[in-house]
């Protein structure tokens, strides 16, 4: 899943360092929304504004964890 998420986000957000441990600080509002929309569509989950916290978007690993958590619901 991690590789697929990196692939998806690299194509949509080429200017963002996805390997960063401070990913949220790299993002702007467009980046946050792009991540929510792309992952909602790819994994058939409902990612909303309340999910866009600095903790959930801190790194790729945190994003993977958020997606996995949503898929279990």
């Amino acid at each position, binding site marked *: 899943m991690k590789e697929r998420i990196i692939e998806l986000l*690299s194509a949509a*957000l*080429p*200017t963002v360092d996805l390997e960063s441990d401070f990913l*949220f600080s790299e*993002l*702007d*509002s*467009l*980046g*946050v*929304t*792009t991540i*929510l*929309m792309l992952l909602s569509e790819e994994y058939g989950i409902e*990612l*909303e*504004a*309340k999910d*866009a*916290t*600095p903790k959930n978007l801190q790194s790729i690993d945190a994003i993977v964890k958020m997606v996995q958590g949503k898929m279990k619901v």
Partner: protein
Amino acid sequence: MSLEEAIGHYARLTPDKAAVITAGGTLSYAALWERIRQKADTLKLREGEPYVFPTTQDADFIVTYCAVHLCGGVAVPRSVSGNEIVNCKSSNSKCSSILFTTGTTGTSKGVIVSGEAWTANAENLIDRLGFTSDLLFIICGPLNHLGSLSKVYPTLMCGATLYILESLKDLPAFFSVFSLPFRKFATFLVPSSIRMLLQVAPKELAAVSRKIDFIETGAAAISRHDMERLCQLLPHSRLFNTYASTETGIICSYEFSRYGCEPGLLGKPMKHSSVRIGEDGRVICSGRTIMSGYAESPEATAQVLRHGEVFTSDTGFIDNEGMLHLQGRLDDVINVGGYKVNPSEVEDAAAGFQPIADCICIPAPHILLGTVPKLLYVPRQGKEVKPRDIADYLKGRIESYKVPLLYEAVDAIRRTYNGKPDRKAYT
């Protein structure tokens, strides 16, 4: 009354009332005024001396901005490129601030805005949008841009309260503001931010609909669909589409929640502004809100500001009711969610990247922003070029919103007979 006089006035009248709230805390009018005076004492500026300072999304920005004015200096909030340092060696005493923009000309320039223009902008907004003292106005865009800075004035000149957010990216933080004990909330959102909220936060928006007094949008075209959807979600709110630029100031605004969702319709000029259409269809603005000129650039000033009128690059018409309708632009500027990007500036910056032999920057459709810059590039022979490497190179050389979001390697760039990139061939 100037912004600083207003803050001093409310520091005496309502000293304990919140003037500026950030994640870091609350400054009352009395505390804000005291900090401005203390800061002014440390600055020691000459009359008309430009003072360049970082654009931070906090109360420090307001303190420094006002302190510079209190000293008689010229406030120059710095952007990413930092060009302000070399471009603002001197200024005249009428000047209150210099804001850097791509705006009307498509090239980054320092726009001189007088204190009188700021006051007129504030009065235009208070009159048309209805700022009142019980309002909490949420700033979620960069404070060195007109869209946000122009709202600081009417908010504090009414004795109301500002809430400054770093940006709109922390959506839970944005919505948490609405739990504060204020009766009325308002904000300015560029159309792409509205699109974003409609996509990922419609339930949250609807939940605070009774609290939102008004939302103003502007700086780029908003679609009929987004206007209608926003009206549905916020049936109790007043929703405005405003025509403004750093060069012209705040000119027109149209309450689409009341009079109907019509794309491109910007309403009648506000009380300190006038607008007419030139023979070439160009929108020409005049009145007390317009800029004094471009810093250190009399030639550029003469191109745009003539006989008290600002000749914009926007095209439009005025209908029988005197309302302005925008139709497009006369130049190649790409409007990215309200930020203007000159493709030549992007190409010039990218040309310095050795692995690229040639490139062209063109507009491309984008689901959220409407349009974004896309870079078509020709890799130098034998070189492997990753979009990420180009983006990394461009970061720091041009402002972040100008860095293309989309990239495509091509075999050659089509050019016109005189060697310029043939943009029309790609549209």
